[in-house]
């Protein structure tokens, strides 16, 4: 029996000073599968030992890849982001954030048995709650959803949502079927009712090739192709009518890259004009829908250093509301403390760092008003 997670007494309006920055994409690393065992039901605890399962490492972030962890954020023993102290040191002290949203990328989505996937996902959410959220009041987290079974996903959402330190639900961009498909809608309906955004993060369950063309050979291809996955998922969410069905649902694209969006949306909108009779529920230009319902974490931005070019790229969004501050810690997307690229005005930077996250995540406002 898995107990529902009850509202935590740790949620207090602890942040009385004006906020400096809300980091919307921080990754706590599960050091190994053994760390989750205390959070599993007895059957699964024993099964892991009996079957000799000792790791579920995803190829999305190979441990020694420079992208997986910035060199100066690794410990001497090469561990990174496995303890609350790491985030305190590098995100709160190092980058000046005063709230961080934890998005675990531990590869529970890889598990093929959906019951086991559910058990591992529950353990992961409980591990994040006990080992992280309970240890620093500045931490918030995403509920990881076991997406291979929609009922399981809704159940896990319900189980965790009582704890308001969970401010979002999260899935990987690479799943089994396009995210707009109607069989997923019970999840979206529930999220909308709860006021929780849906976070879609880079990474894959590897049920499908990470490119639409088949399996690539190299990590470079895999990581680059994530942006293609986001494009297809965003298109699916729009064309299948998720935002017509759940107009209050916010979707946050995380570690998606940013600068591809205006050009891609221009293309989608161009074809919508001629093909919209296929999807009459898409009754306004897709970019208008994106401006209302979609947000992006801002690292990686995918832009040159030239501030003028950055400013022009951002201008193409024709909106100051869409970007959310994020370091993507411990992934290596920038050097030093330069999470906010040059070329973004002070006023817009303020929106990206504080106002937009507060507008996107209603539960953040409960503790920061």
């Amino acid at each position, binding site marked *: 029996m898995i107990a529902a997670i009850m509202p935590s007494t740790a949620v207090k309006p602890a942040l009385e000073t004006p906020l400096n920055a809300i980091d919307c994409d921080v990754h706590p690393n599960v050091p190994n599968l053994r760390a989750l065992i205390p959070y599993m039901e007895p059957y699964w605890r024993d099964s892991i030992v009996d079957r000799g399962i000792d790791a579920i490492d995803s190829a999305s972030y190979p441990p020694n890849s420079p992208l997986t962890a910035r060199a100066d954020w690794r410990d001497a023993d090469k561990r990174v982001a496995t303890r609350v102290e790491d985030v305190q040191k590098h995100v709160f002290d190092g980058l000046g954030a005063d709230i961080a949203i934890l998005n675990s990328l531990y590869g529970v989505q890889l598990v093929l048995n959906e019951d086991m996937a559910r058990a591992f996902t529950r353990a992961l959410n409980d591990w994040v709650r006990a080992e992280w959220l309970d240890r620093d009041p500045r931490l918030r987290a995403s509920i990881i959803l076991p997406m291979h079974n929609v009922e399981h996903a809704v159940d896990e959402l319900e189980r965790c949502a009582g704890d308001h330190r969970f401010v979002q639900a999260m899935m990987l961009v690479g799943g089994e079927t396009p995210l707009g498909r*109607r069989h997923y809608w019970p999840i979206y309906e529930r999220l909308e009712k709860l006021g929780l955004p849906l976070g879609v993060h880079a990474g894959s369950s590897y049920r499908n090739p990470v490119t639409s063309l088949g399996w690539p050979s190299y990590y470079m291809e895999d990581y680059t192709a994530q942006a293609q996955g986001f494009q297809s998922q965003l298109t699916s969410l729009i064309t*299948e*009518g998720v935002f*017509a*069905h759940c107009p209050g649902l916010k979707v946050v694209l995380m570690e998606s890259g940013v600068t591809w969006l205006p050009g891609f949306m221009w293309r989608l909108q161009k074809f*919508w*004009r*001629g*093909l*919209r*009779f296929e*999807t*009459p*529920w898409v*009754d306004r*230009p897709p970019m208008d829908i994106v401006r209302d319902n979609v947000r992006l974490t801002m690292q990686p931005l995918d832009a040159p250093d030239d501030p003028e070019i950055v400013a022009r790229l951002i201008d193409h969004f024709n909106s100051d509301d869409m970007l959310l501050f994020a370091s993507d810690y411990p992934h290596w997307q920038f050097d030093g403390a330069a999470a906010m690229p040059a070329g973004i005005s002070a006023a817009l930077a303020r929106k990206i760092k504080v106002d937009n996250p507060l507008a996107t995540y209603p539960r953040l406002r409960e503790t920061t008003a």
Partner: protein
Amino acid sequence: MARHVVAASSEIAPGDRKLVDAGGRAIVIFNLGGEFFALANRCPHQAGELHKGKLCGLVRSPEPGVYEYTREGEMIRCPWHSWEFDVRTGKSWCDPARIRTRRYDVKVEHGADLVEGPYVAETFKVAIENDYLVIDV
């Protein structure tokens, strides 16, 4: 502005359309159940010729998966990129405030009233006993 007699009304059956010339302007006239409408034969997107397009209904949806198909034959789709235009107004469906093709007034007049008036009938003779389509350009 001149009034141009561009066609005999009997030339365009209900559901049909005809490309005409009015003082050098290419105009397409549609017959919607006996009512005539005239639009510039030029899609405002990239100048596709609207008279070659497909007439269809207006599809709307109150929710995904539900198709409300009304006004059959009252939308013209540009043959090039399928943008839809309302035959009655010339407005595009995708961006009616900004993207529209010019609409002209077209009237049905008796031949008897036309032979005396200051009209231009460039391409055919007006017979007293017939009805004609007249456009102000």
